[in-house]
């Protein structure tokens, strides 16, 4: 756990310590319940949006991490909730994520919506969760990489604006 926290600090040197740290060793439903309690004072719309983003990030981490070295860090204030997923990954997976985000940037809102619906209808292609995150947060994730002890780590940061 401390190792991944050190990695997280490298990704976010300017940030204060996260308010919530969810590590990938716990079952997802337990983590989701913990997060719901932590965000209980937020309006339903934003709380559920954050829970959706968290669920997608954590499931992605649990699927792609190369050890139990993933986590989601959460910062929250009155204007936004920031979720950052950090995990070890492969070069292949990181390239696939970048490609998905790049192609989403070229789409209008309506095209993005159509692409997601098409995938729901025809396939459960990896990356659909990321497209849904972009759609719901109305924000493109910031993606960064660090290498530590020959291991590649990816950080995916999402801002959820609270109006």
């Amino acid at each position, binding site marked *: 756990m401390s190792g991944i926290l050190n990695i997280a600090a490298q990704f976010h040197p300017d940030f204060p310590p996260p308010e919530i740290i969810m590590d990938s060793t716990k079952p997802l439903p337990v983590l989701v319940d913990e997060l719901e309690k932590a965000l209980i004072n937020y309006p339903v*719309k934003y709380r559920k949006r954050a829970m959706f983003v968290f669920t997608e990030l954590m499931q992605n981490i*649990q*699927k792609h991490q190369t050890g139990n070295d993933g986590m989601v860090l959460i910062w929250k204030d009155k204007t936004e909730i920031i979720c950052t997923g950090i995990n070890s990954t492969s070069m292949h997976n990181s390239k696939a994520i970048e490609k998905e985000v790049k192609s989403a940037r070229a789409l209008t809102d309506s095209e993005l919506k159509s692409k997601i619906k098409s995938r*729901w209808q025809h396939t459960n292609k990896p990356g659909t969760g990321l497209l849904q995150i972009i759609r719901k947060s109305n924000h493109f994730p910031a993606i960064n990489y660090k290498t530590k002890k020959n291991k590649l780590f990816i950080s995916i940061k999402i801002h959820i604006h609270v109006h």
Partner: protein
Amino acid sequence: MSIELIKETTDTPALLFDKSNNKLIMRGKSIAEDPRAFYTRTSETIRNLASKTNNIDMVAFCFSYFNTLSAKYIFDLMKAIQTTIPNVTVEWQYEQDDEDMLESGEDFEDMLSADFIFTRM
């Protein structure tokens, strides 16, 4: 009074049958990492029930939320229900102010070319 056909778990919703209102109800979270087995079982349960009774007028979906992996299986389940119970009405329930859940229901309605009833809870 509702009969519990499938019990709710920490990552899959319950399936209930409200006999007095001829209504099937799916209620809870759908966040399983592999939802296939759950939705296959749900589809079979509904098909079995429909073979025993003609009294299913409505299917209500009441998700607190669902993950992307579940979305395809929810869509497939809805299609299967349309085939098994052709004249059934689909109700999409959503929590007040949960615009994302309302929008998801509208997406499914569009994908199925159906007319849902939307109910704010």
